[in-house]
């Protein structure tokens, strides 16, 4: 058995992670204006991600640019929504306010929660995730669609990279191009890359169909998931956490 599968066996059942990600991201949407509650939720989310074994170093490498962008978005959000005590004012314009910073931090935490919830799935193989989806009664066609879609993104990126390399080999120095020319270059590149990806997707669909995909309403599964006692305990914990958060939000208990 490979290392990857052995690791999968030690992980909680993917259905536990589905429940956890659903609860965390739902509360991330529902919570408004309560920064401390959002910070608490983020802490819980990070703790869960660490326990599941999310590789944060790899995540940082992959999402560094996106996180930088999110930080800029939240700073802008804080600048354009001033309220409360003014911390910095230039030429009569409120640049930084306590309320603005709170709003910016809330946006950042909300997006961070979505990313952390999604990151938990990276610990599982696609097959395990598909099986999890199928066993929570999601139609298997949809589960496979998700899995094929997930594969499609890196393939698209790979093809774009290849096309860029091909262009560079023909003497185009992309770094030296002006923004306008760079943008028009990308528009020329994107079309063939999309066409090629569509072709690959079509070939994949033909191969799947010839191997009887969607032949029957249901399908059997060689691999089956079963909830261990520890999974049931975790599901109970998630339920208790949901009730607690619900009470805090509905009753408005100010625990912080």
């Amino acid at each position: 058995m490979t290392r990857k599968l052995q690791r999968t066996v030690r992980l909680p059942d993917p259905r536990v992670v589905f429940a956890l990600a659903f609860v965390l991201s739902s509360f991330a949407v529902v919570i408004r204006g309560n920064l401390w509650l959002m910070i608490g939720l983020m802490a819980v989310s990070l703790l869960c991600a660490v326990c599941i074994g999310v590789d944060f170093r790899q995540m940082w490498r992959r999402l560094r640019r996106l996180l930088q962008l999110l930080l800029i978005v939240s700073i802008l959000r804080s600048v354009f929504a001033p309220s409360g005590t003014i911390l910095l004012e230039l030429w009569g314009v409120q640049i930084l306010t306590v309320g603005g910073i709170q709003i910016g931090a809330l946006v950042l935490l909300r997006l961070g929660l979505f990313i952390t919830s999604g990151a938990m799935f990276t610990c599982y193989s696609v097959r395990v995730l598909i099986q999890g989806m199928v066993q929570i009664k999601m139609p298997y066609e949809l589960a496979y669609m998700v899995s094929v879609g997930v594969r499609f993104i890196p393939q698209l990126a790979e093809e774009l990279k290849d096309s860029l390399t091909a262009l560079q080999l023909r003497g185009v120095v992309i770094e030296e191009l002006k923004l306008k020319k760079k943008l028009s270059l990308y528009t020329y590149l994107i079309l063939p890359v999309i066409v090629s990806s569509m072709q690959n997707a079509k070939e994949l669909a033909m191969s799947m169909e010839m191997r009887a995909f969607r032949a029957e309403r249901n399908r059997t599964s060689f691999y089956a998931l079963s909830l261990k006692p520890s999974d049931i305990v975790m599901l109970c914990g998630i339920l208790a956490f949901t009730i607690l958060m619900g009470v805090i939000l509905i009753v408005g208990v100010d625990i912080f």
Partner: protein
Amino acid sequence: MTAIEVRNLSVSYGEYSVLRDFSLTVEVGEAVLIQGPSGCGKSTLLHAICGLIPGVIDAECSGEVLVFGELVQTLSVAERAKRLGIVFQNPETQLFCDSIEDEIAFGLENICTPRDEMARRIDEMLKLTDIEKYRFASPKELSGGQKQRVVLAAVMALDPKVLLLDEALSQLDRRGKGMLREQFSQLRSEGCTMLMVDHDDELVSIASRIINL
């Protein structure tokens, strides 16, 4: 007994006509090789035999394709998969699972094979294609020839009555071609009905009949 019968098949993509009034008969146990230059309609013929044209592939089509006496278009997806297995050119677009085992199990799961039977078929296919040691490996870790053998194992797991090869060796290196040719020869010696298309002479030694398109 006739495995495949193609009657006056014509296929065109818009104004571009690929096949005109083409007829072919493949008997059970035969290994027919169709040769011809690129663009002459070899792959189109196999797609039509599989029932992918018309339907999955947009093309205008006339004529009839019968598989074991029944029109291919009237066969259900499951029935078609049990009668016809096809290995396409590019292994990259035929493999989509995390492990070789999952890849072989995929088709069997689709036709609702019980788990014990599935386990038996997977073991059998891994042995047949000599990829037992890669059972839990990801297809990404394999060479082109090994990947194509995985595709063959996944296709053969459904125990198709006819094996179709659409330039199955064209994207492989010399070693990969050798490995796969050996596999096809073995299947041929076991009496497997085969219809192969290729633009060069790679599969001539396996064929019992050669048709030039």
